[in-house]
């Protein structure tokens, strides 16, 4: 791609970007959120048709003018978006050949479809029947179905947008192996990822974008690229320390869970959490590490006003006194706040502005006899916009238009404004770029220094190790270990995370 420039009304998303992918290589594309990675890939795959941008796309030396995705797919360029585009209620084979049905005059040949699906599933290493409904398999397997779908289109250049963002370590590992395997078969890939260790592992070269411009293209081997080099290119400065310094001042225990048991909401006999005991002290940042499905989110949600699970038993203590947090309002009254994992679906009212999102949980504080003091509300929103450095032209900006990092700051503002003693942050930096991550970490440290207890649930071990004073490790619904900061290493955490019971 040569000299690509793409403008949206009011913003120049890409300016004169160059990207060169060699045949048979894995090319990583890095950049902060909003740097233009996804836009560039949409141009390449024909989502933005020719004429919509300036510059040229050259494929095997030929100038291409894609009118739509079909055009680019016919040349073997296939994009897999971050949000998977599978139809949940159709089977694997129906999904794979959707829009590309094995049909004659509109009549589908199901036998051929099934046979081909079997072959494709074997290639990607997915042991599922072609008739399995997609909604019944996990995200990791769905990702493989997407790749099988791409393969069915005789892909030559595969574009993967954040393929491992929603996967656990095992599934990520598998996926990366598969991409390497495909490379051997001569399929080139462009991979967009925030996980720099993955890039280091599999990429042959890397292109870094910043503010819609190409910063540099590096050969992983020749240039001896390390994570630090990539980060420096992405943020335009050295990040000597990815986790801000903090001297913990830890006080008495303010929150404790004892003998906490929770069953699955619909499968009555399935025990999701088994005899959990944990506590958080004043000014402490506590981490929960664990693989996906270990029960971390379930623990947080079941404690937070019983928003998850059935047949909950056990005790919760705040400041040494037992409390019964039977609904979310009670949990909030007792000083609990929960920042959800999926901010778009569970955290924000996307069609509402920053101001209304921040005030939503604290309307009682802002109103008298149910009438909201809108002027106070504006002041509060302005205060948090300044304090948490939410980057937007005004507090009346709709949250749907904000970047991931700024959206997360809005959700944090909402919960900090409720004045909690304990904040539970579920994957607080997922899908957020490096610069904004640092800011979120600083906010967490600030909260701890104000004497609040912070519980961080995270799948990124370096983050847990870098931020937390004490770490609980969960596995299969129970706590399999507890380690202090000074004793913790990735290896120890991994060992507890994967250790099976019994």
């Amino acid at each position, binding site marked *: 791609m040569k000299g690509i420039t793409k403008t949206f009304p009011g913003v120049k998303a890409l300016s004169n970007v160059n990207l060169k992918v060699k045949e048979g290589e894995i090319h990583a594309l890095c950049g902060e959120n909003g740097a233009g990675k996804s836009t560039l890939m949409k141009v390449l795959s024909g989502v933005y048709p020719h004429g919509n941008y300036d510059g040229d796309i050259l494929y095997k030396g030929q100038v291409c003018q894609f009118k739509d995705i079909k055009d680019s797919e016919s040349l073997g360029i296939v994009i897999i978006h971050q949000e998977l585009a599978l139809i949940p209620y159709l089977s694997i084979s129906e999904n794979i050949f959707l829009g590309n049905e094995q049909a004659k005059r509109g009549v589908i040949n199901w036998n051929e479809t099934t046979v081909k699906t079997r072959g494709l599933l074997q290639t990607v290493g997915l042991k599922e029947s072609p008739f399995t409904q997609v909604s019944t398999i996990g995200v990791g397997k769905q990702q493989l179905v997407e790749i099988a779908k791409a393969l069915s289109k005789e892909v030559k250049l595969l574009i993967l947008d954040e393929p491992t963002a929603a996967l656990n370590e095992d599934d990520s590992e598998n996926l990366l192996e598969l991409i390497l395997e495909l490379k051997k078969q001569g399929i080139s890939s462009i991979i967009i990822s925030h996980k720099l260790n993955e890039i280091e592992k599999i990429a042959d070269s890397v292109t870094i974008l910043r503010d819609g411009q190409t910063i540099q293209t590096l050969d992983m081997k020749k240039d001896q690229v390390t994570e630090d080099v990539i980060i420096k290119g992405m943020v335009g400065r050295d990040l000597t320390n990815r986790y801000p310094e903090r001297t913990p001042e830890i006080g008495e225990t303010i929150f404790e869970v004892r003998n906490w048991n929770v069953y699955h909401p619909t499968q009555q006999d399935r025990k999701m959490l088994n005899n959990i005991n944990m506590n958080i002290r004043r000014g402490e940042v506590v981490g929960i590490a664990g693989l996906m499905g270990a029960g971390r989110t379930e623990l947080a949600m079941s404690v*937070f006003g019983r*928003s998850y699970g059935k047949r909950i038993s056990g005790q919760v203590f705040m400041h040494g006194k037992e409390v019964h947090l039977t*609904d*979310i*309002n009670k949990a*909030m009254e007792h000083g609990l706040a*929960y920042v*959800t994992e999926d901010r778009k*679906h*569970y*955290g*924000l*009212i*996307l*069609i*509402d502005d920053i101001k*209304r999102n921040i*005030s*939503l*949980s604290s*309307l*009682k504080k802002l*109103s008298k006899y*149910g*009438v*909201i003091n*809108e*002027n106070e509300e*504006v*002041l509060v929103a302005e205060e948090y916009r300044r304090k948490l450095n939410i980057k937007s032209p005004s507090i009346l900006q709709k949250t749907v*238009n904000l970047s991931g990092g700024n959206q997360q700051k809005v959700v944090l503002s*909402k919960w900090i404004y409720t004045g909690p003693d304990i904040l539970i942050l579920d994957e607080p930096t997922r899908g957020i770029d490096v610069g904004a991550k640092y800011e979120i970490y600083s906010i967490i440290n600030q909260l701890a220094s104000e004497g609040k207890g912070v519980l961080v649930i995270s799948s990124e071990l370096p983050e847990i190790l870098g931020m937390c004073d004490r770490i609980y490790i969960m596995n299969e619904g129970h706590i399999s270990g507890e380690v202090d900061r000074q004793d913790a290493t990735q290896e120890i955490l991994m060992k507890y995370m994967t250790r099976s019971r019994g």
Partner: protein
Amino acid sequence: MGAIGELFKKNIRQYGMIIALIFISIFFQILTDGILLKPLNVTNLILQNSYILVLAIGMVLVIITGHIDLSVGSVAAFIGAFSAIMMVDMQMNPVLAVILSLLMGALVGAWQGFWVAYIKIPAFIVTLAGMLLFRGLTMIVLNGQSIAPFPKSFQKISSGFIPDLFNGSTMHVLTLVIGVLLSTLVVYQEFKTRKIQAKYGFEQSSVWLSFAKSAALVLVINAFTFVLAQYNGIPNILVILLVLIAIYSFVMNRMTMGRHIYALGGNEKAAGLSGVKTKRVTFWVFVNMGVLAALSGLVFAARLNSATPKAGTNFELDAIAACFIGGASASGGIGTVIGAIIGGLVMGVMNNGMSLVGLGVDWQQGIKGLVLLLAVGFDIYNKSKTS
């Protein structure tokens, strides 16, 4: 010039329908040789559309929560029949009967709200069932026949006018006085807001804009009361409507309850995890719809002076159309009470205008359908352009 253009562009969605309403009015005013805006016809317009507008207020709340209510026409008919049994057959005191009717409406709303909010059956299905159920009940209660006549005092809800305390001979003086009082209120409010904004140190629009806005509003209010005063003055039902509009606008814009309704419609899960009692709010929105459907049924019965098994047919469609023309979003979270009223008036003026020029009901239906489609299409086009 640029600033005015910018201002217009920013508010086109808010004022688009008002402008459309003005154009449609002017269009029919010309087409009917000035009959449309004659005092008698303006009064008629209000009386004809009052029961739809009452429904539209409740409906817009339901739509903002992301639901729909198809049963309101049947519920209105059922409550009309219920009130007729009490007032005509049992000779009950009208005031008591009205109160009981509204309570019955609340009960009906609670019934449907229970299924929607707590059992999680889609509102489309619950209220489709309700549409059949309450139509059936209406016919059972009425034995398939109409009941009439209602007591005189009850009919006054729809056919009465506020008394003229000043005994004007050619003009209804109290109506004019009310116009002036409302004008003062508008100007006072505008200045009060400015003062509070100044106190908090907020950015303010220019004084001229405030002035122009108040002047326009004052002009509209007084022109309206002037026209009404030339006939019988302000109808009772208009007073009820204005009070409802004021209350519901205030609740939706300024109170926590309203904020919870918008949040629930915008993202139910996020609202729930932020401490909004989503089930309870949904339930009460349906109870409220039931009460307003009951009121609508009473107003219609009073206007017709009889309770009939066929009353309220297709009311739900008019009310729903009013909300969507007024800018509500079918996926929830967006919409205003004022918008729904404007939407209702657009439909009302068109109905009235087309009848006046002698267009058949067949054509009226078709044209109304196209207007609904175009209005929503225009709205969606605008949204896609701005985002």
